[in-house]
Each structure stands twice: as C-alpha cells, then as structure tokens.
C-alpha cells in the first residue's frame, strides 16, 4: 500500500511498485518521455534525405575503375528525424546541468553561462588560427591576460597555454624536464618516482618521455611514505610526479620536504595539477618548490568537459624549466601582441611545440571569464567551499559508510568498502543503485590504494540542501545494503534506459563498428 496524502497521490513511491513495473510493456518500447532510440544507421535508409542538392552536372571524371560503384551506405533521414535523434540521445545523458555529479577527481563543477556567452562573442568564436596577427590582437591580449593570472595564481614565472588536456600538459611538463636534463648533460637521470595513489596518466607520461617509473608506497595516512621516498633517491632520479592534494583527497603535508629532497638529489618536481581547484587562492605551487604543473582549465576554471567540450591543460614552469617551455607563446611588443611561433625566435631553448596551433581558444575565453567574474576573493572562496562541501559530506556519511583515512579531507571524500562487508553488495552494485536514485555515481575503484574505493567530489557548486538530499540517499542505500536488500543492488539499475551493461564482454569482445544486418548474417555463415 502506498502512503497517500490529502490529494490522494502517493507521497512516496513504494518498492512494490518497482517490482510490478514491466507488467505492461509498451508496444513502442518507449516509456512516455523516455523514448527508445535506434542507431542512425538502423533508423535511416537510402530513400530519404534531409538535403536537397542540385543535379550533378555531367562531368567526366578521371577515377576510372576506382569510381565507387555502390551507394556509400550513409543513413538518409529527414531533418526532423536527424534532430530528434540527437535530442533524444541528449535526454538520456546525465549532465551537471541535470543533477549532482560527484565524480571524484573529475571536478564536475557548474559551467557558468556567462562563460558561454563570452566564448560566443564573434571576435572570439569566429577566429581562425591562421589569421594574420593584426586581426587577432584581442584574442592574443586575452591569452596574455590568462597567462598572467595563471602564473600569478601558481607563483610560477612561465606558462605554456597550448596543451589540450591534463595528460597533454603532463607530457609538456615532463618533456621540459627531459630537455633541461639533456641540456645539462644529465642523461643518466631517467628514473621518475610516482606514488602508488597517482593518476594512471602519470606513469604513462613518464614512460612516453623515455623515463622508467619507480613506485613510492603510501603510508597509513594516505600520503607519500617519506622514508620510502628517501630510500629511492639517487643520481639516476629525473624527478617526482606528485599530485597535491593527492587522489585520496588529502594534502601532502610533507610537500616542502619532498621538493627539497628531490632538488637536493638533482631531480625536478612535477606536480599533477588536477586537484588545483582545492587550493587556488590559498597556496601557490611555486612556493612549494614545484618545477612544472599542468592546470586543468576544464576542472579548476569551470570550462565544460566530459563530452561537453574539449579539455585544456596549460602548464606552468619554474625559473629552472622556463627556458625550455614550448612555443608558441604570446609576448607584448610595444602596444601590440605577437606570437612567438618558432624556436629560433624564442629567448630560451624551447623543446618544440605541443600542437599545431595555439591551444583551446574557446576554453581560454571561458576560463578567463570565470576568473574575472569571481575575482581573487571569489576564486579563493570557491576553493574553500569545495573543501567545506567535501568535509560536510564526509561528516554526514562517516559511520554508515566507512571513510578511508582519518582527519579532514580536501576537495573530495574517500570511502572504502568496509561498510559493505558481508552484505553481498560490492562497490560496483552500490554505484549502480545510485543511478536508479537519479545520481551519477561517484568515482569507484580509484585510487587503487583503497579497497573498493568510492571517491566523492561534490565541488563548490552544490548548496547545503542539495548535499543533504544527496547524503540522505547514500545513507538510505547504505542502510538497505546492511538490511540485506541485496537484490536492490544486484538488479540495479532498474530505472535507467538500459539495465546493467556487460562491461566484461564489451572489453573482451568489443564491437567497434556497425554492420548492416545482412552483412552480419553473411559474415556469421
């Protein structure tokens, strides 16, 4: 029986209702506004088209036997059909504009609409990277201003704007370290120290740059084991790649000591800036002894990501590495701005360039818009609120859920799966049940140093009301798991457009391209 309010409407959905669902399957497969959607290839055919092209004039071609004999097989659709396809897909998508997006280590914060408005100004939106400098002075001035604030906020003298994402920025930083080592004749230094809680991109970047990776264990507090680090120093060490706050959401308190140790050993300090959003305005990485760090504009400075837009990973450098920073970069020459595009025109000894053009201009506009609209005090408060929100969730959830480490966290709260012990429910099931509750799951099974990890990053975007509601849902789920409602978790998601996907089979036997039904049948024979 549903509990009824005065209007006779159910005030809360009963679980039994969910069990009855599916008795009345719709004929179309759609569920009211949740419409089923076929692939474009399955939906379209060669008879229809949304475009009206003039008849091809009778011209002789030189292709001979190479001319295509059959239709290319692109699906033909009317314009409304094509539009509906993408609108329907977008409605199945979860987005920060739709609800809480607590994906740890990803910083899915609100993307202010002001940023979008600025990025669409024709003077920024309609640029071409090959335009003459004299016609893009405003854009160059913006890049110069962005560079100024990035170097100011990090306390580091130089920045390369061109890297296109976090890992690209890492590559940029490590290539500069490599160039510096080579320039100094330190070609024996090829070992890079990476904590075991690091993002997977760190060791991958080191290897890509020709280094070998040496893993440093974490201590019981979730931070770098200082003694283990000391034991790994030597004259073959190129540097360390350290995230701060680290992926356990904890501030590496020994960071100054770590920087000193690395520098005394002759190596350089790469800081993975993925979590810079926790400390902007409070800490300048340059003061901590960092030599290079990428900044994810798409996390810290709120530019859209995760399918909403490309990333941008500007990389800042210390005095030691600045001469090796890549081209291009913007300089002011009198009252004009210009791009230094070539190594031979640069003051230092750039290691080369990271991309053909100048970086993600649209993201530069959005990031600067975010900085200017917040101001110095606003940026600092955003960091503080991100940390406050994470600690609020940590406090609300600790107990029914089990925190991974003691003490305050920074911008993300990390839990292990101890609270699910003997319930038959695993981290994966718990995450899937959150989908039914209308929430994007948190990051799971990362960092690897915590068993069954659940990493929650609420960001500063969420209000207290929103955090309370989110926490209530997680607490109810944790209680349900302990009460033995295993099926609720094993069956989840029940209410999603698709039920649980076979991730194992998708990874083992990936289907990478669509084939027409007949062709597939033929291939099977």
């Amino acid at each position: 029986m549903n509990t009824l309010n005065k209007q006779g409407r159910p005030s809360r959905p009963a679980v039994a209702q969910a069990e009855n669902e599916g008795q009345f399957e719709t004929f179309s497969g759609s569920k009211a506004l949740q419409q089923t959607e076929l692939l474009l290839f399955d939906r379209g055919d060669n008879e229809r088209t949304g475009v009206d092209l003039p008849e091809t004039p009778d011209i002789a071609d030189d292709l001979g036997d190479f001319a295509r004999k059959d239709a290319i097989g692109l699906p033909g659709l009317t314009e409304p059909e094509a539009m509906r396809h993408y609108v329907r897909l977008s409605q199945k998508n979860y987005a920060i504009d739709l609800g809480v997006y607590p994906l740890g280590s990803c910083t899915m914060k609100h993307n202010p609409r002001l940023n979008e408005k600025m990025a669409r100004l024709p003077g920024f939106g309609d640029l071409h990277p090959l335009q003459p400098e004299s016609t893009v002075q405003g854009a160059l001035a913006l890049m110069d201003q962005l560079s100024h604030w990035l170097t100011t906020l990090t306390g580091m003298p130089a920045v390369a704007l061109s890297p296109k994402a976090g890992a690209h920025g890492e590559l940029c930083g490590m290539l500069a370290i490599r160039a510096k080592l080579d320039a100094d004749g330190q070609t024996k230094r090829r070992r890079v120290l990476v904590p075991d809680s690091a993002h997977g991109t760190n060791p991958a970047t080191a290897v890509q740059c020709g280094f070998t990776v040496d893993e440093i264990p974490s201590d019981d507090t979730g931070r770098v084991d200082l003694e283990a680090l000391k034991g790994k120093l030597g004259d073959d060490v190129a540097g360390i790649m350290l995230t701060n706050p680290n992926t356990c959401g904890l501030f590496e308190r020994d960071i100054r000591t770590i920087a000193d140790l690395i520098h005394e050993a002759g190596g350089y300090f790469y800081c993975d800036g993925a979590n810079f959003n926790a400390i902007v305005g409070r800490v300048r990485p340059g003061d901590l002894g960092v030599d290079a760090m990428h900044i994810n504009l798409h996390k810290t400075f709120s530019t859209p990501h995760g399918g909403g837009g490309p990333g941008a990973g500007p990389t800042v450098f210390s005095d030691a590495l600045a001469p090796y920073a890549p081209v291009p970069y913007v300089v002011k020459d009198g009252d004009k701005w210009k791009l230094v595009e070539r190594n031979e025109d640069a003051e230092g000894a750039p290691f080369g360039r990271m991309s053909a053009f100048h970086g993600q201009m649209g993201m530069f506009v959005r990031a600067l818009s975010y900085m200017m609209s917040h101001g110095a005090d606003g940026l600092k408060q955003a960091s503080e609120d991100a940390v406050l929100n994470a600690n609020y969730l940590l406090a609300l959830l600790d107990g029914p859920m089990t925190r991974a480490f003691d003490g305050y966290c920074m911008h993300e709260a990390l839990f292990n799966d101890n609270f699910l012990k003997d319930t038959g429910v695993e981290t994966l099931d718990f995450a899937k049940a959150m989908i039914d509750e209308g929430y994007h799951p948190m990051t799971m099974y990362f960092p690897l140093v915590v068993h069954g990890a659940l990493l929650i990053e609420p960001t500063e975007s969420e209000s207290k009301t929103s955090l309370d509601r989110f926490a209530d849902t997680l607490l109810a789920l944790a209680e349900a798991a302990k009460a033995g409602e295993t099926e609720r978790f094993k069956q989840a998601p029940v209410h999603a457009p698709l039920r649980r996907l076979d991730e194992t089979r998708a990874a083992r036997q990936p289907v990478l391209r669509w084939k027409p039904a007949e062709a597939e049948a033929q291939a099977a024979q």
Partner: protein
Amino acid sequence: MTTKYTKDHEWIRVEGEVGTVGITPHAAEQLGDVVFVELPDVGASLKKGDEAAVVESVKAASEVYAPVSGEVVEVNSAIADNPGTVNEAADGAGWFIKLKLSDAGELDGLMDDGAYKEFAANEG
C-alpha cells in the same frame, strides 16, 4: 615439484629448472573479470621483481612481476586470446609464463602455501 608465492600474489611452480608463473586465485578474484593480458617475448631475460606481464580487468590494470630471475622460455598465448581463463583457472590453465631459472636460490625468499594463505587472509 614445489609451488611458492610472492607478496604481489604471483605463484611459481618449479619442475626441474623451469618454473611456471601465474597469479593466485585470490589475486584474480580481487582484480575482477580479466579483459586483457600482455605477455613478454619468449627469450626475454627477467630479473626478480621485473615486470613480466600486464593484466587488465574491468576494475584495474596491474603488473605481474617475475617472482625469480630467469629467461622466458614459453608464454601462455591462450590467455591473451581468452583472458577469462585467468579468472576460471588462475592456478592452472591461466598460467602466464614459463621461466628458466637463473638462480634457484631465489626461491628460498618466497612464501610456501601455508605462509601465503595466512598473508592473503591478513591482507583482506
């Protein structure tokens, strides 16, 4: 024929001068469904603790280390084609490589069956 275990959850079963190496059922269970295995080249020379293979599951990617030093004399290409075998028979058909031992003395530093069981239980 003796089977020894490492703290990184590899096992090695030695017959004569050749040891067969795999990961323990405990490790396979912790990893979850294995979806990809990368094996070394036959003839590769490995030192104890060197990365011998890479194993990826739906949850994580991790390395399989050489429990002892030796030369790779055979690899189990069947698990590269069908990674599920590692989950189904981690201590049997799901073996990774065969090593020709260069220093059988290194085996002494590894755990026996009883010691490993205790170690794995304590690790959670």
